[in-house]
Structures are given as structure tokens and as C-alpha cells.
């Protein structure tokens, strides 16, 4: 896809300055932005030093949404922690669930059956589309393009209905389990997803027509908030923010999990690392997610959704009600949990925001000794200084929107 450019991008950071403009700069002012500010998408506080309209320094303060998740994980069984992962990146809970469960399964040495793998891929891609739609709607709204918001939220409603019929919850899904899934697909669910997959690309085309070639949108985003690839790599930025700089790093491609190596999809990258590139990358990712969803629907195999291990997986409900052995099993798994071997693992997946990794140190027993969440938003936020300094205050809004941080996973 060719990138339509309004004008050649400026060579350095920020807007071009005309000679003599510096003489106009005077006293600097410190501006507090947040923690409650509509454009910060959560409780992010920025202390901005401005010189007129130009940003001279940005200091982010995080932690307002800290809930001590890593500490909580040490006090409960592996299964009990699943609902907490919903509340990390609360725009893509299914993706967090899968990331956590896969780290535990790596620790346990479990591989789930093919049907469960395909359903998990569906979960991840539905979550990615849903998260990107929210980013697109609110990001455009921040820059004054209100129409897009209604288009994206209409589609998100469809997605939430799909997710609700699958998991029982719209936001707090807690769907996968160690060794498989909480429940199988409900009747008629694949048909709903199929109709979404068929209709959604047309909506994307509509939004594409609203924004991509829109002169105002291009002026607000092109050459704004430039992040160089070398800076992004040094800071550990991942996901669409890194791909916008032209680095084709996607965990689905580099370290495939859940059989991602067998799906056909492209990894979109940008070239200039500005807000517009990150917009194009995320936009194209939604199209690629639809492609992957289409393939999952075609290949969805029959078969079990859980591994055959009564020490880990709950027995079927009807046999719990009728058989003593299964009743005891269910009681033991629910009350005691299962034992994990001692060891340490790090497992990362490509979440909508970037590389979401879980590090688990186990010393044996039913809960982790230490659990650490490598959240992509926390690490991406560090780059805000590189992107915003030298630009205008109004560009800072575009920069925050294009970074797409979710404070739930920044503060954990």
C-alpha cells in the first residue's frame, strides 16, 4: 500500500521552525495534564514544560491505577489469577487471558488440543480488532474527527456481543483455562463470527475513506510525533508503535505460538515513524486480523477442547453430579489447585499493544513465587518524551492517542 503524503516529512523531530522564530520564545511554563484528562485515555499524568505552544519537556507520572497484581498473584492458585488478567489491558481481555495461560502452560509443559488452539487464535484476533477499533475511534475523536467514533463503536458492539455469547462476559472474559478452554463454542457462534468477518471489511473501507486521504487528518498526523527506529529499539518499544518505525517485529511471526505459522497474514510496517504511520499500521492490522479470522473459521477442527489430565482440567459437569470420583476431582482442583514444577519461564504473545509477556518463577506448589507482567504499554510510554518534545501541545494529544497506552496494564 502506497502512503499518501501531503508534503515531504520533515527530516528531524517536530515541526519545521522558521529562522528568527526563536527570538519569539520567552518564559517557559509548566503545565499539568491529567491524571484525569479526556485525551490521556485513563489516569496518566503528564507534567509538560511549554514555551508558548511548543513542548520543551514531558515528564510522565504513572501508577494511579496500581492494584498490586503481581503481589496478588503470589497469594493465589494459577487458575484463580485468570480474572485479574482481564483487568490488564481492559480493551483486549481475551488476549491477556491467552498470554497468561500460555505462560502457565509453558511452565507445566502442556500443549492444548488443535481445536482449543484455533479458538484461542480467534479470541486473540477478535480482541485485536476490538482494541484497535477503540484506539481508532477515540484517537480520531481526540483530533476532532467525531464521525469515526460512531462507526467504530457500532462495530465494537457487534464484537462485544460475539464475545459475550462466547464467554458470558463482555469485558471480563476469563475464558481460557490451563489445559484448554472454559467451555466450547456455543451453537451458532461461528455463523455470527462469519457474518462479522464478511461485513467488517466494508466498514473499514468506509472509515478508510473518512480518514486516510483526509487533508485535515493528514496535516494533524503526518510528520508529527516522529519516533526513530533506533530509539524505539533502545527503549524496548514493541507492537504497532515499533512497526510504525519500519521494524517488522511481530511475535506471531518471529516466535509463532498457537500455530500462527500456518496462517497467512502480512505484517504491516511504516517508514517514517510518525502518528500517520502508526495509524496506517493499526488500520492494516485490523484487515489482517479479519484474514486470520476467516482462516480459523475455515479450518476449525472438531475434537476435545481440553487436554486429558484430570489433575488439571475440571471434569464435565454431568459426571460431577453423578460420580463420586469426579466430584472429588472437581473439589480438589477448585479448592487446592494444581502443582506446578519448579522453574522459570517467560512467554510472550503479540497482544494488540505489543509484546505482552509473562515471567513466572515457580518454586513448586500451587502459586507462583514471583509473577511479572511485561506490559507493552508501560514500555511504550517511555518513548513519549522522544516523540513529543519539540512539537506543539496539540500534537501531544495526537502522540498520546497514537501510542495507544492502556493504563490498566501500565500500572498493573
Amino acid at each position, binding site marked *: *500500500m502506497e502512503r499518501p503524503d501531503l508534503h515531504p516529512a520533515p527530516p528531524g523531530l517536530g515541526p519545521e521552525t522558521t529562522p528568527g522564530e526563536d527570538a519569539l520564545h520567552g518564559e517557559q511554563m509548566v503545565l499539568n495534564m491529567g491524571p484525569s484528562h479526556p485525551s490521556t485515555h485513563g489516569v496518566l499524568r503528564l507534567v509538560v514544560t511549554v514555551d508558548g505552544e511548543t513542548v520543551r519537556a514531558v515528564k510522565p507520572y*504513572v*501508577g494511579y491505577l*496500581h492494584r*498490586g497484581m*503481581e*503481589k496478588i498473584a503470589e*497469594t493465589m492458585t494459577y487458575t484463580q489469577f485468570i480474572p485479574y488478567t482481564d483487568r490488564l489491558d481492559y480493551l483486549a481481555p481475551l488476549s491477556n487471558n491467552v498470554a497468561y495461560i500460555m505462560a502457565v502452560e*509453558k*511452565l507445566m*509443559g502442556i500443549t492444548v488440543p488443535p481445536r482449543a488452539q484455533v479458538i484461542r487464535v480467534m479470541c486473540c484476533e477478535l480482541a485485536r480488532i476490538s482494541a484497535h477499533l477503540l484506539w481508532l475511534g477515540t484517537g480520531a475523536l481526540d483530533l476532532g474527527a467525531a464521525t469515526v467514533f460512531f462507526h467504530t463503536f457500532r462495530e465494537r458492539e457487534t464484537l462485544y456481543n460475539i464475545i459475550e455469547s462466547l464467554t458470558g462476559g463482555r469485558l471480563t472474559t476469563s475464558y481460557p483455562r490451563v489445559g484448554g478452554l472454559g467451555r466450547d463454542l456455543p451453537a451458532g457462534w461461528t455463523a455470527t463470527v462469519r457474518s462479522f468477518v464478511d461485513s467488517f471489511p466494508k466498514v473499514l473501507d468506509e472509515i478508510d475513506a473518512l480518514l486516510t486521504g483526509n487533508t485535515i487528518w493528514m496535516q494533524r498526523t503526518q510528520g508529527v510525533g516522529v519516533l526513530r527506529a533506533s*530509539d524505539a*529499539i*533502545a*527503549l*524496548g*518499544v514493541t507492537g504497532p508503535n515499533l512497526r510504525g518505525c519500519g*521494524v*517488522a*517485529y*511481530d511475535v506471531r*511471526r*518471529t*516466535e*509463532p505460538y498457537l500455530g500462527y*505459522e500456518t496462517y497467512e497474514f*502480512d*505484517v*504491516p*510496517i511504516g517508514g517514517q515513524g510518525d502518528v500517520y504511520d502508526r495509524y*496506517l499500521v493499526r488500520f*492494516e492490522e485490523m484487515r489482517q486480523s479479519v484474514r486470520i479470522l476467516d482462516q480459523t473459521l475455515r479450518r476449525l477442527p472438531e475434537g476435545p477442547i481440553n487436554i486429558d489430565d484430570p489433575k488439571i482440567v475440571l471434569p464435565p459437569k454431568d459426571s460431577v453430579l453423578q460420580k463420586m470420583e469426579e466430584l472429588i476431582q472437581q473439589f480438589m482442583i477448585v479448592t487446592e489447585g494444581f502443582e506446578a514444577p519448579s*522453574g*522459570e*519461564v*517467560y512467554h*510472550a504473545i503479540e497482544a494488540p499493544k505489543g*509484546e505482552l*509477556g509473562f*515471567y513466572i*518463577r515457580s518454586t513448586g506448589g500451587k502459586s507462583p*513465587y*514471583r509473577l*511479572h507482567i*511485561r506490559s507493552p504499554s*508501560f*514500555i511504550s*510510554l*517511555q518513548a513519549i518524551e522522544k516523540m513529543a518534545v519539540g512539537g506543539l501541545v496539540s500534537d501531544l494529544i495526537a502522540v498520546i492517542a497514537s501510542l495507544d497506552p492502556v493504563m490498566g496494564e501500565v*500500572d*498493573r
Partner: protein
Amino acid sequence: MVAGPYIEPAPRHDLVKRLGEAVPGAVLDVAEFRGEITVVVDADRLVDVCRHLKEDPDAAFEMLNTVVAMHFIEGDYEHEVIYQLYSLSKNHRLRLTVRLKPKEAVSSVTSVWAGANWLEREQFDLVGVQFRGHPDLRRIIMPEDYPDHPLRKDFDVEGGPTSADADGKPASPGWRDMEHA
């Protein structure tokens, strides 16, 4: 917009050998679990090790993925700090571990990877590890006047001060209200 190529992960066992040759005496132990390699390195040589791993073209760890510290009550050492590295160009990962005795600090790796700044601040804040030479070692997640390091194993989840701060009064206003209640 192009499709990124799939890079076969390179074999990694030779990296540890090369590391041992380049920074003699730095590698204390090597462990492998579930296909992941963990190298225990000498805390005093950590920055040399990291610089070598970043600059050696066969290792090329351009990216520091995350830093995890953990606290131990029993045993020879008090803290373990883990560095999860990733190489974009070679597509492989490596985990470094340093073990710290009580009161021992570890050198900051911010000079090697700029992104270590927030990662180390977080572990200092939550676990209480001191990073020597860090440009800006302040709390990041907890409030600035918070007295404790909540991810320490002796942290009382019920709310009391830890043994380390047994006689110091917590500074947060919320605590004072609770004392009067």
C-alpha cells in the same frame, strides 16, 4: 507495507561459550528449562556482559525486554535480578540473572539500553533493589512518600510496616488515619 520474513531462531548455546570467553569469569552458571537459557552472571561484571551481548554481532541483543527482581528471605542472597533480552536481527532470547547479597547494589544497565530506565525504577520501587549509576532512581508506581517495597516477601499484606521499617512511621496520610481509627 511489507510482510516481515520469518527468521529461524539461531542456535544459542554458542552464545554462552562466546560470552565466557569475551568476559572471563563472568558466567557463574547456566541453566536450561523449557527451551529457555538462563545465564547466572557475576553482579560486578553485569555491565560488561550486557555490553558484549549487545555489541557482539552473533549475539546482537538490541532489546532489553524486561527486568524482574525478586526478594528472598532465606538463602545466601537477598535479591535476584533477571534481565530478559531479545535480539531482533537474530531472533533469539536470553535471560541473565544476577544474585545480590543483603545490602548489595547492582550496576544499572541504562548505559547499554536506554529502556532500562523505567524497568529498573519499577523494580527499585516494588522490590527495593538499588541500581548503582541509575540516572533517575525514583519511585514510579507507588506514591513518592510510600515507605515500603510491596513485592518484598516480608511485606505484610495486611498493612503493617515491614521489619525493615519497623520503627519508622509510614508517611502516607492514609496510614495516620488508620492509626487513629
